[in-house]
């Protein structure tokens, strides 16, 4: 067998593509066409499929070893940042007895969980004097370690005002990007659709999941999409981006569809547009997010819409009258 011939090369590439977990429909079609081209292609591809499966019988052992190695690596990393009070706590806990200890205290050390409901806002001062303001429907976990202050973002929006400490960086992790600062004020909006980082003062380092580190300065913002790719750095308007801190949202010529999506973050009963054509209507204005009724009537009047309430949503459609 000559593994360097073209059939082999292409077969290896196709096999790797089909294992990616992200193969597209058109790639699947192309693969079928390529397989249909020649028996050599089919033979080579079958051999790579066999190769991919050749370790299946060892899967549990290999995976368990891999997990075990991950745990050892994490423990080593943790060793490097271990805190003195951990051993004091361990000493105290050791005074407690056996199974009781097992069932209760091992659940004890937890990160600080901050969360808000629909329409709710909250502020939390952290142990180092930094503060976090949470906008509607936001969930994050704060863990302070010796060498790092970590905020794990589940979803939502928060404004961080971070006390400067160069030896103990403040790290915000969203599913799309890691944001590292030493002391600054910045806003993070992280939803299923991506993460937007806006810097109010100081500087922030953002590392998108699929990209290089980018430094943002005051007045700049960056959008990271669901694929972990960063947009170009843009200027942002604090007057609109941070209006939520006064319980308001402001828009300047934004399409209605986008505006409603943004407003729905505040409402347990979402607004739905009855006609997709309405989504492009431009909206300029300020809304008080604590008052869904007024928002709905304002939109209805401005665009001649009719609101109909269903058990799960408020439907806005073109008025018949």
């Amino acid at each position, binding site marked *: 067998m000559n593994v360097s011939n073209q059939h082999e090369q292409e077969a290896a590439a196709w096999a*790797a593509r089909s294992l990616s977990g992200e193969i597209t429909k058109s790639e699947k079609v192309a693969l079928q066409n390529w397989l249909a081209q020649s028996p050599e292609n089919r033979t080579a591809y079958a051999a790579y499929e066999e190769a991919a499966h050749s370790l299946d019988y060892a899967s*549990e*052992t290999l995976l368990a070893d891999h997990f075990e190695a991950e745990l050892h690596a994490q423990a080593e990393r943790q060793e490097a940042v271990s805190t003195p009070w*951990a051993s004091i706590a361990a000493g105290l806990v050791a005074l407690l007895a056996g199974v009781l200890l*097992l069932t209760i205290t091992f659940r004890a050390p937890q990160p600080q969980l901050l969360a808000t409901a629909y329409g709710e806002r909250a502020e939390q001062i952290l142990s180092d004097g930094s503060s976090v303001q949470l906008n509607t429907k936001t969930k994050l976990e704060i863990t302070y370690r010796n060498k790092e202050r970590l905020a794990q973002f589940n979803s939502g929006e928060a404004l961080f005002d971070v006390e400067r400490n160069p030896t103990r960086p403040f790290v915000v992790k969203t599913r799309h990007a890691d944001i590292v600062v030493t002391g600054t004020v910045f806003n993070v909006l992280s939803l299923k659709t991506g993460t937007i980082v806006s810097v109010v003062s100081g500087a922030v380092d953002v590392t998108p999941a699929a990209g290089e580190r980018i430094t943002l300065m005051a007045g700049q913002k960056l959008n990271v999409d669901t694929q*972990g790719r960063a947009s170009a750095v843009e200027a942002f308007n604090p007057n609109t981006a941070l209006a939520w801190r006064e319980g308001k949202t402001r828009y300047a010529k934004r399409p209605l569809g986008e505006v409603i999506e943004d407003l729905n973050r505040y409402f347990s009963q979402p607004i739905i547009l009855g006609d997709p054509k309405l989504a492009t209507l431009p909206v300029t204005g300020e809304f008080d997010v604590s008052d869904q009724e007024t928002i709905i009537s304002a939109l209805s009047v401005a665009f001649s819409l009719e609101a109909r309430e269903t058990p799960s949503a408020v439907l806005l459609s073109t008025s018949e009258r």
Partner: protein
Amino acid sequence: MSDNNKFTPALSETEIAKQLKELERVFQKHNKMLIGWLTNKLGERDAALDIAQDAYLRIWRYAHKNKVENAQALLFKTAANLTVNEFKARKRYVTRHTAFTTETENDNPLENLPSDDPSPERATLARDDVEISINAIETLPENIRRAFIMNRFEGLSYREIAEKLGVSVSSIEKYMITALKTLRAALSATKQGTSTIVPFPDAKRRQGIR
């Protein structure tokens, strides 16, 4: 299954008390990290807490009768095995084939967790290929081997692996091509009788702690 335990001298009360104390220390020390890791693997904190509890209790019981040399290693091994079991139960990973158990079977009760072993014939047939492939994959650089295992057995997409390893998605695709080519070449070489089969690597390591 051998019967090593009956040759192990019974542990004295003081020895047991001492190692239980050591277990407490180790559990407490790694609890937070372990639960974080489990939550990350399983996607939910409740399941993570359950598995951690299960691991603690299994080891706790084990330590009443058996000598524990290295509590941390035992904890990580038990947690890793329980996580693999949970993956299997949830059908989270791609292959349903069972472990290459006959060589690695041992008498550690912590590892005698239920599994759906293949028939002895199937296991023997597959074992030749598995040995060759394991030897081949262990020659690969760490990151390539990890990428292959995460993709095939943890069921992660290239993008997810790229995030974990801190490299680009296209690098992962290249790693996978390298891994597949290496496996393909090893399997094909043996079929032509040009390769020497060496013993199953690290069988001792896989047998775990005594």
